[in-house]
């Protein structure tokens, strides 16, 4: 056999998880990880509702559970509830039977499936390659997903503005107005990652108007419905508004944060159409078979069980509200500390968005300073996961951010 490898051509790819791995290796006693993807509680770990644990135990001892292959599109009860959560039970789209849902492997799986559907079927094309517009900034992996599905023409529209530390709707609307007709536009219904910055309902109305005028297709992302504002309805308002205008859309939902089921990969792709629902559903089935055949059951079973039971539903909503409130409280405390430390600038942008993320608009050197010198790990632009700030590290984090923004680096 030859001594060279058939894999000689594969170049080494530094891991996206490098930041997290650096954090794990860091032995500094004050280190703080503000770059994580999960919600962590006051104790610094991911949490579960006692309800989730109880239901998992029920599932583990249920003799009637069928271990066989589930439907390709997932558990019907799950997709039904996930759809109702996003659109509202009385949504005209549901009543008119022009919606279908697919249980996917997390939000990533939902985006990937949506991308594959668009690639194969958007605009009567058998090979649509874009353009697709993503908000700036956003995770690199989003670009990667669309490209992997074969959609090469990935562009960005201006979303978060570094100077004002919030969404600049003027820029966004301008970019959408100048996009080619029929583009697909990825929009965060709520909980933008990594900045946490959101549009107001008035802003959404403007954006939706442009979408309709330019015949742009919305692909909405909703990763933490209920956790951003504390209200399920408010966090999905944008989705329902688009539907009320008669738009067709895709919506990728994640149940990771709202149920603490990160490891179980519970996602959902919602498809709202004007017609031809069954055909699109059959094509989605075909695509799922080339990705993962059918989805994993455990997490979706838990979610379906909770969402179908009125008492569980109440308990779950209370748990989520508590999370949303804790995040808001942390933001307020952080703002207070920074105000007291007396740095320049307003701090409204910290408390304005809800949910997991907020952004300080730091430059590369400032971020580097925080990571290397203060052992505080955060994302580019100074975006961070507020849940990882707790009573033990609040002062240290606030002082360090203050230092980063006020020293000559």
């Amino acid at each position: 056999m030859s001594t060279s490898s058939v894999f000689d051509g594969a170049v080494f790819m530094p891991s996206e998880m490098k930041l997290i791995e650096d954090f794990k290796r860091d032995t500094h006693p004050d280190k703080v990880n503000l770059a994580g993807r999960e919600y962590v509680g006051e104790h610094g770990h991911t949490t579960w509702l006692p309800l989730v644990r109880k239901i998992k135990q029920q599932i583990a001892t249920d003799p009637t559970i069928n271990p066989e292959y589930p439907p390709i599109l997932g558990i019907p009860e799950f997709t039904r509830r996930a759809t109702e959560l996003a659109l509202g039970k009385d949504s005209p789209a549901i009543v008119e039977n022009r919606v279908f849902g697919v249980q996917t492997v997390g939000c990533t799986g939902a985006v990937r499936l949506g991308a594959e559907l668009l690639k194969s079927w958007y605009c009567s094309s058998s090979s649509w390659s874009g353009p697709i517009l993503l908000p700036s900034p956003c995770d690199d992996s989003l670009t990667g997903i669309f490209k992997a599905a074969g959609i090469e023409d990935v562009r960005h529209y201006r979303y978060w503005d570094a100077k004002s530390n919030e969404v600049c709707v003027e820029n966004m609307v301008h970019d959408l107005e100048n996009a080619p007709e029929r583009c697909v536009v990825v929009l965060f219904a709520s909980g933008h990652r990594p900045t946490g910055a959101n549009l107001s309902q008035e802003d959404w109305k403007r954006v939706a108007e442009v979408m309709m005028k330019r015949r742009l297709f919305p692909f909405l992302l909703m990763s933490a419905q209920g956790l951003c504002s504390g209200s399920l309805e408010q966090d999905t308002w944008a989705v329902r508004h688009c539907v009320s205008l008669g738009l067709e859309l895709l919506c990728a939902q994640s149940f990771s944060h709202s149920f603490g089921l990160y490891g179980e990969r519970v996602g959902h792709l919602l498809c709202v159409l004007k017609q031809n629902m069954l055909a699109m559903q059959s094509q989605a089935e075909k695509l799922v078979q080339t990705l993962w055949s059918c989805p994993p059951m455990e997490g979706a079973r838990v979610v379906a069980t909770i969402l179908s039971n009125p008492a569980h539903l109440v308990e779950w909503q209370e748990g989520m509200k508590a999370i949303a409130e804790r995040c808001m409280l942390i933001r307020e405390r952080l703002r207070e500390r920074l105000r007291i430390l007396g740095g320049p600038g307003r701090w409204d942008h910290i408390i304005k968005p809800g949910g997991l993320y907020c952004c300080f608009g730091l430059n590369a050197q400032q971020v580097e300073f925080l990571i290397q010198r203060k052992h505080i790990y955060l994302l580019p632009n100074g975006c961070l996961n507020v849940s990882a700030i707790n009573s033990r590290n609040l002062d240290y984090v606030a002082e360090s951010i203050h230092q980063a923004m006020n020293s000559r680096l």
Partner: protein
Amino acid sequence: MSIFGEVPLAAPVAVFKLSADFREDQCPSKVNLGVGAYRTDECQPWVLPVVRKVEKMIADDHSLNHEYLPILGLPEFRSSASKIALGEDSPAIKDNRVGAVQCLGGTGALKIGAEFLRRWYNGTDNTKTPIYVSAPTWENHNAVFSNAGFEDIRPYKYWDAGKRGLDLTGFLGDLENAPDHSIIVLHACAHNPTGTDPTQDQWKQIADVMKQKNLFAFFDSAYQGFASGNLDKDAWSIRYFVSQGFELFCAQSFSKNFGLYNERVGNLTVVAKDQDNLNRVLSQMEKIVRITWSNPPSQGARLVAITLNTPELFAEWKDNVKTMADRVLLMRAQLKEKLKALGTPGTWEHITEQIGMFSFTGLNPKQVEFMIKEKHIYLMASGRINMCGLTSKNIDYVAESIHEAVTTVQ
């Protein structure tokens, strides 16, 4: 007017349509010999006793965290799953040149392997590199590789309908004529749908040709343990190729041998020339996983890892697997005996010579149609039956119906 207004309705997958038709059939003596899942003699799905035990352990374990698994999966699952395929004392493992990616079932493992090969196998664009799959093969192989971007998917001769066995000459001929560096999808054991595996000697011949032609071995291993009842025996082909110095991929599924169909437990084992190559390969695979499903699901992998890494549980699992394999072997033996006793024309040795869940009966499409329409016995148009659908209660009816089909329908 919908943007998706012209999208055509996709044809349903044959095996699922068969099951749907079966479900709607009101006939009390109906039998489903279609879908590939294990059934007990009461025709019920079977949750392995060891699985039930470990499930409870997991649900009661309050120390487990709920975070995302690493992108490449649960480390203890990946390493123990690879050991199952390659053997505890595999020299390749000792040389640190074996790695793995936890995937969504066997399908997911094929997907990640295919996506990697298309990008990095032989040069950086393998869209034109030929992929060879057996004729016939699992119906989803084509779709997975095609969707991963491979444009040239070809059959290699495999099933000889005339002699109801392996067409080795044809197989070797196709390998010899394949362009160098082509990718060959091999069924590690219990070939789906024919149930016909090469003998060890035949595997040696296949490996020889593949070595000469620098053909890449991509094993699909969905039935380890399930075929003969013995894990090592069912992995012989993979281990032989490794011993011959091949770099290879092995897509492992734990759906059948753990009865975990619905938790999507798969593993892509990678055997590389050396650790450096392995690391580069895994680093690229991590990127591919990140933009496909990001992180794999934890439940099934935890279950398998705990079982494989705990001696008493591992022993119990092997026992459970043998139970399933033994029942299948019993049904094979009994079906053959009954057909011989009925004097059904033709030879029926292939029923016991074939291995695993499936058997290619040799029934032609008209005979299959007769079985479905007149006898309410559901099998694939290819004549493939799932032995697990046979029970002590229905085996006589099935044998008699096959007899009737063969003698009255041409």
